[in-house]
């Protein structure tokens, strides 16, 4: 049994009077094993964050999980009550939000915010939770934790705040850590240090991780498996080495070709020709067809099914079936 298994998960955003429906996550199935790191890549708006928030059932009010199953440690999270779900969040599955700098509360000290999950999930006393908070700050390589715990977020640098959010995420020893990579990233060296830190934490603690990014270069360094999203669908998934050597989907191939042009590691995946699709009015058939260099006639009418290309390598493309 895998640690996490998504089966045909679909999450839609429905506008106020139900007039517009965005299929932000559409029939996504994937798995994450113990101690594995899965990279999720895709253009802006492809549904990566929505997918992650669906796992935790912490979606914005307009979102609905319309179908699917989320199996985690042998339980379907979608059948859990709100109370039970609360005990999963922060304790068994933790997430680092896309904007780590805005995710600390300006009115409370760092120590309070790092100690909070320990107090809520483990009933730790204030003293012992704060002692653990200092250890956690040390674990994310923050100097002088004794003074830092008493400071407020605005007194810390961006890099420090990012690592404190990391410390909060690992505080209760979760089995799965989801890290949504910042799109407006900090300085490159700080970013590299942060990625290194995440990888070290993952190895030391035997965490499973889902790493969300725009950057295939980072996937190559951080992940065991990769899943490529396009317009809410998982278009290709498989082991990193396999995808990098023999991608089956034209979109993945285009992403791989654009890597050299992203040498500085900062450019987005929009280096591919054509516009990303309008999520409210997706093209019929394969959503990628207006931009696909290998488009066939049937691509315009029928959506391709997910097919197995090789062991644990799947693709959603007519060329593969």
């Amino acid at each position: 049994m895998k640690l996490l298994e998504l089966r045909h998960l679909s999450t839609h955003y429905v506008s106020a009077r139900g007039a517009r429906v965005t299929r932000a996550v559409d029939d996504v199935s994937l798995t994450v094993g113990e101690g594995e790191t899965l990279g999720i890549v895709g253009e802006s708006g492809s549904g990566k964050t929505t997918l992650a928030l669906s796992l935790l059932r912490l979606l914005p009010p307009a979102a609905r999980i319309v179908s699917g199953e989320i199996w985690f440690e042998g339980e379907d999270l979608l059948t859990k009550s709100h109370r039970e779900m609360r005990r999963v969040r922060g304790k068994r599955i933790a997430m680092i939000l896309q904007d780590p700098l805005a995710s600390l509360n300006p009115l409370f000290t760092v120590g309070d915010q790092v100690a909070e999950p320990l107090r809520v999930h483990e009933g730790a006393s204030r003293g012992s939770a704060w002692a653990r908070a200092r250890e956690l700050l040390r674990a994310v390589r923050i100097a002088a934790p004794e003074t830092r715990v008493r400071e407020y977020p605005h007194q810390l640098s961006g890099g420090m705040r990012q690592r404190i959010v990391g410390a909060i995420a690992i505080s209760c020893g979760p089995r799965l850590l989801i890290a949504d990579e910042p799109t407006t990233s900090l300085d490159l060296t700080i970013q590299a240090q942060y990625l290194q830190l995440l990888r070290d934490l993952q190895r030391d603690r035997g965490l499973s991780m889902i790493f969300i990014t725009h950057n295939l270069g980072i996937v190559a360094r951080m992940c065991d498996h990769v899943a490529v999203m396009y317009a809410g669908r998982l278009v290709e998934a498989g082991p990193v080495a396999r995808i990098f050597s023999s991608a089956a989907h034209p979109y993945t191939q285009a992403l791989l070709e654009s890597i050299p042009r992203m040498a500085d590691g900062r450019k987005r995946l929009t280096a591919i020709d054509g516009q990303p699709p309008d999520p409210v009015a997706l093209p019929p058939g394969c959503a990628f067809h207006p931009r696909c260099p290998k488009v066939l006639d049937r691509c315009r009418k029928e959506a391709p099914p997910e097919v197995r290309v090789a062991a644990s390598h799947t693709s959603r493309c007519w060329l593969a079936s």
Partner: protein
Amino acid sequence: MKRFIVKRLGFAVISLFLLSLTIFVFVRVTGDPAVLLVEPGASAADLAAIREQFGLDRPLWVQYGSFLAHLARGDLGQSFYYKTDVLELYLSRLPSSLLLAAVAMTFSLVIGIPTGVIAAVRVNGWWDSAGKVFALLGLSLPSFWVGLLMILFFSVYLGWLPSSGSGTVWHVLMPAFALGWYFAAAHMRLTRSSMLEVLGSEYVKLARLKGLPEALVIAKHALKNALIPVLTLAGINLVLMINVAVVVETVFAWPGIGRLLYEGIAFRDFPVVQAIVLLGGAMIVAVNLVVDVLYAVIDPRIRYER
């Protein structure tokens, strides 16, 4: 920063000067105070004597110049009617106004903040709609009308509360509620919108991601942040309450500044009206100045834009 403060001070002085001119002209349009100060059937000579006594026989611009000259020395003049120093009169009424404003503020916060929080937490739900109706009523029903309704119900029909005057705790309840009613609605609306903004923030999302109970997320992480603008507004409103209670104080015969202003207008007691309007204006200008400066100190974007 210094330039910013100097500039704002300059604006404040100009607005107070314009206010003094406006109110000076305005009171004189209401009529001749001498008529109200003499015995019925007094002769034209008596009237002229009174006008001369108060300097009302001089040309308007001379009167205004002398008013400003006294003002510069901190002298607000003598009341025509009470024949005492206006400032003394004002200060003797101030405690009543402060008490009324403090109780009204308490009402407005105790009603406005919880209803605003509930409306935001249950946005678009039943509670939110009820809150919107309440806000609409609060902002549109005139306070004298609310006051009269309360007098009818609590004093005339139930006989529980005194309908006018002051002296006991019971006396302050109805006027404070009538005055606080409007502000409760304003505080509710701001609490709601401020809460909605905070509830959509990343730090509230993180608080939920930590697995905190929803009550803790709202009471600790959201509310504390959402209250900052509400309490700022409450500070400004407290000053407003002291100065705009004319109608409520008149309806309930509450001996505060508002009632003094009403009497001043009724008796054409020019120095009293001028003093109250100017002091009220000065308070409002000052509190706005303080808030602007505080915001500029807190938020560097405001500081450098101006």
